[in-house]
């Protein structure tokens, strides 16, 4: 520690709350989304890999999955992008009341979607231990379902924090990133919904 130091940069005036890719959490969120997305991608790859082992899909003796309720669920899922978008907007405005409101709405949506997911499982009309067809159907649903449940816990927890707890400035970028992650959740559901419920009718 002998070297002379000269100050050439002063960062005092830099903001301490930033949104989007300027903040750390945005990167972390998408980091996890990429890893989880890779897992989903590989599960989907597994689906098509195993598909080759069956002459017909679903295999003979298995009923088609019900598509009606899951498709409605998918529509609800898409619709929840609106509260997620509104949450992001209000968080960027640092509007605590609005953010709280949208967090509560998103919490309700998350709970509803958890319920919808239960129906989705019934709509498969197959159990995981009957054949590889059932196994991959359940895993695709279950894997995305576990992401949904974890995210639901996060949304609800954040909502509780916004209602009850000490809300700190850094919670606004957090809330914003919840919205980002929600987009990932919805986006990743689309291919899964398609190959699980619509796919067996096509291939």
């Amino acid at each position: 520690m002998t070297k002379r130091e000269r100050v050439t940069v002063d960062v005092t005036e830099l903001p301490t709350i930033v949104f989007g890719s300027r903040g750390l959490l945005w990167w972390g969120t998408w980091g996890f989304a990429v890893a989880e997305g890779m897992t989903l991608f590989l599960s989907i790859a597994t689906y098509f890999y195993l598909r080759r082992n069956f002459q017909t899909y679903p295999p003979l003796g298995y009923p088609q999955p019900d598509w009606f309720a899951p498709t409605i669920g998918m529509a609800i899922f898409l619709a929840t992008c609106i509260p997620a978008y509104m949450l992001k907007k209000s968080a960027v405005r640092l509007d605590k009341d609005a953010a709280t409101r949208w967090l509560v709405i998103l919490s309700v949506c998350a709970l509803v979607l958890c319920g919808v997911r239960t129906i989705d499982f019934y709509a498969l009309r197959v159990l995981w231990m009957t054949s590889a067809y059932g196994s991959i159907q359940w895993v695709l649903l279950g894997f995305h379902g576990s992401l949904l449940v974890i995210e639901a816990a996060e949304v609800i927890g954040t909502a509780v924090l916004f209602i009850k707890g000490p809300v700190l400035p850094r919670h606004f970028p957090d809330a914003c990133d919840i919205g980002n992650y929600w987009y990932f959740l919805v986006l990743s559901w689309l291919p899964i919904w398609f190959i699980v419920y619509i796919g067996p009718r096509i291939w």
Partner: protein
Amino acid sequence: MTAPPLVIGETVPVDVGAEREQMERVWGSKRGLWGWITTTNHKEIGKRYITTAFIFFLLGGIEAAMMRAQLSRPENSLIGPDKYNQIFTMHGTTMMFLFAVPIMEALGLYFVPLMVGTRNVAFPRLNAFGYWLFLIGGSFLYVQFFLNTGPDVGWFAYVPLSGPAFGPGKRADTWAQTITFTEIVAIVGAIELIVTVFKQRAVGMSLNRIPIFVWAMLVTAFMIMFAMPAVATASMYLALDRLVGTHFFNPAEGGDVLLWQHMFWFFGHPEVYIIFLPATGLVSTMLPAFTRRPVFGYPAMVLALISVAFMAFGLWVHHMFATGIPQLAASFFTATSTMIAIPTGVQIFCWLATIWSGRPRFATPMLFIMGFIFLFVIGGVTGVMIASVPFDLQVHDTFFIVAHFHYVLVGGAVFPLFGAFYYWFPKVTGRMLSERIGKWNFWLFFIGMNMTFFPMHWLGFYGMPRRVYTYLASTGWGPLNLLSSIGALVIASSVITFLVNVVVSLRGGAVAGDNPWDADTLEWATTSPPPPYNFLHLPVVQGRSALWDEGDERQVTVGTSTERREVLLTTPLDAQPDSRESHPHDSVWPLAMALAIGVLFITAIFTPLALPIGGALALIAFAGWAWPTSQDVESEKSDEKISLEGA
């Protein structure tokens, strides 16, 4: 007491004691056990990580020694077949999942923040959580091993051997859950590294200026993000097959055993490079210090790293040549397997050029680098040989393969790692390792290594299969095996020499000072060992060799808070200052979360109740982790830039 604010252009006064004290207060951890379990300091955790991984290296080494003891003569009855199965599986699993990948990430988590000139990794609590989970996962494997429930299905756990029908009991479950632990650990580590490298670099350290080790860790982290999910998914399928009766690997019900091999090697081959790339990064970063010149061909090196990373995902099938894949696919994967020698060769020639054009100084780290180049080239050449299908079919599952990948992994990763131990030991502990013992260490290792593994090439040609616990005298494999076992003894003595060196040097080694090797990277710009906040004033970087390019004066930044933990965020490409972000305090919740997840994974082997119980525990830990403490509220108040009603 805060120091008077510095302004641009001012020279920092020599007496910064008060400022140091203040920073120590803000960034330091509590003393005692509580401080130890709650700390989120990347160096504390990195040290632990390295030590824990090294202990696993020793355990794996003991297992290797046991195998060599058993194989030292024909029809030896030292270890029975059942135990032998567990031991070779434990050896492979330990070395790959509990030593090689973690220790590389651990080095990254320790040194990357220092090398890029920041105060901590991006998500310090996640970092602590990662370590605890690693410790729990590794301990779980060994507790199970001592309970006779160690995995016995090989480190790549091929189905159907590892499946529910032929892998009775809980042994393969132990393997599958260990994998689940380690892949989570690896992925969180990778995310921390990526974000740290992209967002927390020192001002002026644009992407084309970061040390090659940091490049290597960045590339590795990306590889982890794409490779680890494959083994995670596969081990999840395996666990589901074993625990709830899914049919992923049951051909009778539409499953497929090759699915396992594809998914495992889609991870498994990149895994080799996940271990090897950081090692090359270590070499490229150490080399300038011992050749007195910047590494030759920086852009070529970086491009080689990146192209290896891409190609690593395109050659997994060469592990599966014996499965009867279509000829066209075999040809393709032969081509890619041969092709990856090109970027690897580029790196080797860059190193040679660096040494050739520099003024080499053969200190112990340099010896290990030279050893690395020699051994890795041998391993690389045999690698190109087995990339060819007919040759591979001949030596598949023989000791030739064992020889090949030990040359690659021991030569390619362990040698640089030992060099790195000698090189960075002074930075971490403040004391130099003994050079005299170090030379013993190196030569014993080098000789032992060749003695152990070179004969295995011949054993492979003679047809000795892997994973047999004994062989008949009439095979004639006895003498070479004995030679190999003696070599293992030499390696063991080398590792003991290293341990002696560590113990001796920790007590009475030469005091290192900030920069004993006169090296060029930023970690040498701070004290040895570094303070909890790493740098009193965050450095500003002028060139690729930060310390060599700065001249007499070091340029620094001011303006990050001294009242609370705060890191400076810069732009991802050019590293221009962008924002200041508050940094979390120490917390016990990462440990609690790791315990909850540990309970979840371990009990999942025995009962589906694990899900609700572990889930509830994890939820509690999650709430504790995220809920702001009074300390958080306090430190946030010191930030006057923003208020809730603001905007």
